[in-house]
């Protein structure tokens, strides 16, 4: 038995052993491994001892590549932009508990009666308002008291709108308010709505609103009179 068989090859001794023990490699910080030094000394030692072993060279090559890979992964990681700083955490103070204190208040029965006077006046107005529920729709003068010219023209405008409605509802007999005023300016939309109220008062169109989507539906023609859904 020759001693050379028992003797470990040089590369299984430190520092080169690191290149042959992968599990150790994973525990080290790649930046602490000087590959150039390890490889130069590995080659020099191999030449010196004359133990030329291609398998060992292959393993060394593999390990070096792995270490490079680890280093470049770390580099890439470093290049990732740092996470944006989250909004600074708002300091939420604890609740301020109010100490219990008795406090005389300044409200007297006189104050109560002063305001009662106001409230009862309001009640009276409400009652008056109730007895004059007719007509349901406001008179034109209530809406546009100052626009005399517009009022004079109102009949003509109504006819115009009615004609346009008949044209647009065609077979269906119904049209949404939003469709009718599509693309119109705000003031135009308001005018159209008021004209619709007049037409409804005359019973020529029916109006009803879907409470959920707030759409107003306009029904035109005979069919309205038949379907009792008209809602002024």
């Amino acid at each position: 038995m020759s001693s050379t068989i028992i003797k470990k090859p040089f590369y299984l001794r430190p520092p080169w052993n690191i290149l042959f023990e992968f599990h150790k490699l994973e525990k080290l910080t790649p930046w602490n491994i000087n590959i150039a030094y390890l490889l130069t000394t590995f080659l020099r030692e191999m030449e010196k001892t004359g133990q030329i072993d291609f398998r060992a060279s292959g393993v060394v090559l593999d390990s070096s590549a792995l270490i490079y890979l680890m280093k470049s992964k770390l580099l890439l990681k470093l290049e990732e932009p740092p996470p944006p700083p989250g909004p600074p955490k708002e300091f939420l103070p604890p609740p301020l508990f109010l100490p219990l204190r008795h406090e005389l208040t300044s409200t007297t029965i006189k104050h109560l009666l002063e305001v009662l006077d106001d409230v009862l006046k309001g009640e009276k107005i409400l009652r008056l308002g109730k007895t004059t529920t007719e007509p349901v729709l406001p008179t034109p003068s209530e809406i546009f008291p100052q626009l005399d010219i517009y009022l004079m023209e109102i009949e003509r405008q109504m006819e115009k709108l009615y004609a346009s409605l008949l044209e647009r509802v065609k077979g269906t007999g119904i049209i949404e308010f939003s469709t009718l005023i599509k693309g119109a300016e705000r003031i135009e939309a308001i005018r159209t709505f008021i004209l619709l109220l007049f037409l409804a008062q005359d019973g020529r169109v029916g109006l009803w609103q879907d409470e959920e989507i707030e759409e107003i539906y306009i029904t035109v023609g005979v069919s309205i009179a038949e379907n009792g859904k008209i809602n002024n």
Partner: protein
Amino acid sequence: MQKMERLTINHLQEEKRQRELALLEAALYVAGRPLTLKQLGSILKTRSKKKVKNLAKMLMEEYAKRKSALEILELKDERYVLQLKADFTPRVRKLVNRPLLSAGPLKTLSYIAYRQPVSQRKVVEVRGHHAYGHIKLLKEMGLVASEKKGRSAILKTTEYFADYFGLSHDTTTMKRELKRVFEDFSKKEINQAAKNG
């Protein structure tokens, strides 16, 4: 030895009594209104009216003994109140500047008082949608109580309301009182307006 024990027991009893008196005082102080024996009993965690009454009397005496600006009075129907002695009122009145309620809720309260028993629906109709919030506040403050009647809630003022404004606890009498004061007040207003006008 026996004497010592008795002393300790007496001492403990005395401490308990002191605590109960303080609790009674706390109740009367924060309530700022007359409290019944039942209400006081519920704070003291006892059902014995006699016990509450004894304690209340003790506290009354204690207050009477020290030369305090405050007094505890027994009212009729066995209610107790902690209040400022009347002679001090003029001297400290200028420190009282916080209204019981702001204008909105006060209006709603006045309406309920005048029209009671009145449905919540009616109150909201007259006072507007804000009245929901006012009614909630008035209930929380113990000025108004509600009673379910079918779908609607019927509103009334409470005894606390009557105590606060010095009105009768009986609703009919109270409404009469309110009406009378109101009429007097309106007359005065009219006279005032006539004078100014």
